[in-house]
């Protein structure tokens, strides 16, 4: 009825036609740009005699990677392991830094953030100086600083500092610790441990329900650990103790390169990893501290005063009144910091820590030359890791936000 070909201007000026028209134009432009980009890429690749494909993932890799969690988990061996293994070793090493870094940065960040609000002059100014220095120096420089500081302090490759009363040792080639060797049957013990955790959680929930009803719960703090130790321990004994340890072995004799810690004994944390962890943790903690401070300051002063007036002590006030209210302000920017930490771990390429960008988008890329495929894989991987982090933090946020009754 409104489509009247005799009246073109009425058609063009029709609000609904315009709405749809613009949408279609935008979608058309988008589809066209994507198609144009892909077509050009394919044409250029063809001109250079290159092809797209993921066949390289089953080729074996011909270069050595330094000992890390990834190479241990995937049992890396030159000439046997494939580029797929390299990819997963990279992801493992990236995730290791991300998880440990997020954990440690949160602890340090919360501590420093609260210190900045302390009435204690020394604590307050220490925290202020920390935040200002850390936040205002580029991360890459801090990475180099910690790496070469770590290397400068540690004893040489053929001497050691004993740790854990001689069970482990520390020198410039890394921190050597006893390593677990899982025998058959350890899976059962691990399963029992998980089961006991789930059971404890159930008891804790029951206890909470009971407390809400009757005002008295169980002594979960006592029951849970006993239960976990009992169940896991019994299974461990029944399965015949399926866990051995190998201890790092230090030699002082023999050919010069054979002295020092032996490569097949114990477990090693390379100094590159320690430096990356240190730098990323301290850097991100500086930002988290400010987020925490902002969150706490944003909670009305009246809340604290009300709490004091009913007789709660400062520590309890902070823990039960202020922090829970501050959390809803803290969590969204905190999520960003967690994502930043994960992505910043790619700077580790500068100091030879074999994470995803370093070994897969670096060394492997140079050998294989499949730039588009490999960079695409690395980008997708970071995207997935970030989305999972965001998803978890959103869930956490929904849980801790204040439930109004």
């Amino acid at each position, binding site marked *: 009825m409104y489509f009247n070909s005799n009246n073109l201007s009425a058609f063009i000026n029709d609000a609904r036609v315009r709405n749809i028209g613009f949408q279609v134009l935008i979608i058309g432009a988008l589809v066209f740009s994507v198609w144009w980009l892909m077509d050009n890429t394919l044409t250029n690749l063809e001109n250079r005699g290159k092809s797209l494909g993921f066949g390289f993932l089953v080729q074996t890799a011909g270069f050595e990677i330094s000992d890390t969690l990834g190479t241990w988990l995937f049992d890396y061996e030159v000439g046997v392991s494939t580029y797929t293994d390299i990819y997963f070793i990279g992801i493992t090493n990236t995730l290791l830094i991300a998880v440990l870094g997020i954990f440690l940065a949160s602890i340090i960040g919360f501590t420093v953030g609260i210190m900045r609000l302390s009435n204690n002059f020394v604590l307050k100014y220490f925290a202020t100086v920390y935040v200002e220095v850390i936040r205002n120096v580029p991360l890459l420089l801090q990475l180099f600083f910690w790496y*070469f500081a770590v290397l400068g302090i540690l004893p040489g490759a053929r001497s050691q500092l004993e740790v854990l009363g001689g069970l482990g040792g520390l020198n410039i080639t890394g921190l050597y610790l006893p390593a677990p060797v899982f025998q058959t049957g350890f899976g059962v013990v691990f399963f029992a441990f998980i089961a006991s955790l789930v059971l404890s959680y159930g008891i804790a929930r029951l206890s909470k329900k009971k407390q809400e009803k009757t005002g008295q719960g169980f002594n979960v703090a006592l029951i849970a650990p006993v239960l976990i130790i009992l169940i896991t321990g019994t299974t461990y004994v029944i399965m015949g103790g399926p866990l051995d340890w190998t201890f790092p072995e230090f030699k002082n004799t023999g050919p010069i390169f054979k002295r020092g810690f032996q490569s097949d004994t114990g477990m090693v944390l*390379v100094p590159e990893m320690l430096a990356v962890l240190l730098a990323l943790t301290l850097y991100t903690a500086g930002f988290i501290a400010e987020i925490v401070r902002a969150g706490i300051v944003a909670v009305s002063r009246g809340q604290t005063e009300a709490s004091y007036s009913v007789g709660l002590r400062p520590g309890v006030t902070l823990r039960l009144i202020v922090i829970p209210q501050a959390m809803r302000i803290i969590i969204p920017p905190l999520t960003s910091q967690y994502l930043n930490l994960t992505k910043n771990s790619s700077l580790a390429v500068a100091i030879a820590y074999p994470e995803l960008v370093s070994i897969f988008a670096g060394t492997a890329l140079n050998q294989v030359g499949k730039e588009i495929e490999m960079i695409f894989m690395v980008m997708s991987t970071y995207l997935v890791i970030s989305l999972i982090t965001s998803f978890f933090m959103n869930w956490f946020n929904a849980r801790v936000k204040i439930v109004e009754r």
Partner: protein
Amino acid sequence: MNNISIVLVAIVAAAAGYFGSTMTKNEAPAPAPAAEKTETASVEATLNAVKAKGFVQCGVSQGLPGFSNADDAGNWTGIDVDVCRGVAAAVFGDASKVKYTPLSSKQRFTALASGEIDMLSRNTTWTMTRDTQLGLNFAGVNYYDGQGFLVPTKLGIKSALEMDGANVCSQTGTTTELNVTDFFRENGMKFNLVAFEEADAVVAAYDSGRCDVYTTDRSGLAAQRTKLANPDAHMVLPEIISKEPLGPVVRQGDDQWFNIVRWTLNAMINAEEMGVTSANAKSMANDNNPSIKRLLGTEGAFGAELGLSNDWALNIISQVGNYGESYEAHVGPNTPLKLGRGVNALWSQGGILYAPPVR
């Protein structure tokens, strides 16, 4: 309503399809790698162009001591620089008529192919890919290099075969990692590789003791060693685990210029073999030896064949020196690099340096 949206979608899609196909028809050939195709008309006349502008534009490194390195006053020295100076001496009779363009390893071939420089003399490894696919020609080899190992002298290591269990530092993204992994596997030895992105980080990590061994090209080791806190406390092991022949490069398609660069290098090597030095070149031009006479232009007309004057080689040797002089002055045992001649000695002295005769 629905009809309208369908009509609109159809119109837009048709338009996009039409413009899209016409646009890509026009644009698809444009991004072809223009820099790598070098058979343009201008390259034929490099010699004339060089003569017209009055200097040789030479691509060098951004600073590799002994090979091409600028001092505080901006004067370039090194064995790669001497090849540039030799070409200038051959063309102009004046070795100082060179202008230098410092290039990174990524820029170097593009700069040569695009005509920004007349020749490239920048510790560049001659490989089949570069020779055949980049539109370039290697005019010879002025340094036979190979990957080697640097170790602290105090460890008492004499051979790379004693390195079982070593921590090895290297730079990532090169063939270095593959070569070193192959070497240790071949010899049934274990090692731990620590691979950095930047060369300076490798040097710093090695200097701090993180690694027992630093591996890269031996000339690179010698040059980087000068950056260590105490260069004398480190030594390069005798083993060479890869072939890296370094030499000057010119554009493909200009045989005259190619010959000039190639024979400048050959003249320097032949001069050493004949005992002609910068000091005695002028007097030896009248020597009884006909080979020396031919080289120095007192017999025959070999310069004219290159499109140069007959005293082309005399100018090279009297102004730049022979190969041995250049080697001793920049990378030899009496320089900070302390590189022995090794395979870079003349064939008559146990090396593999062998230049075709001038005749």
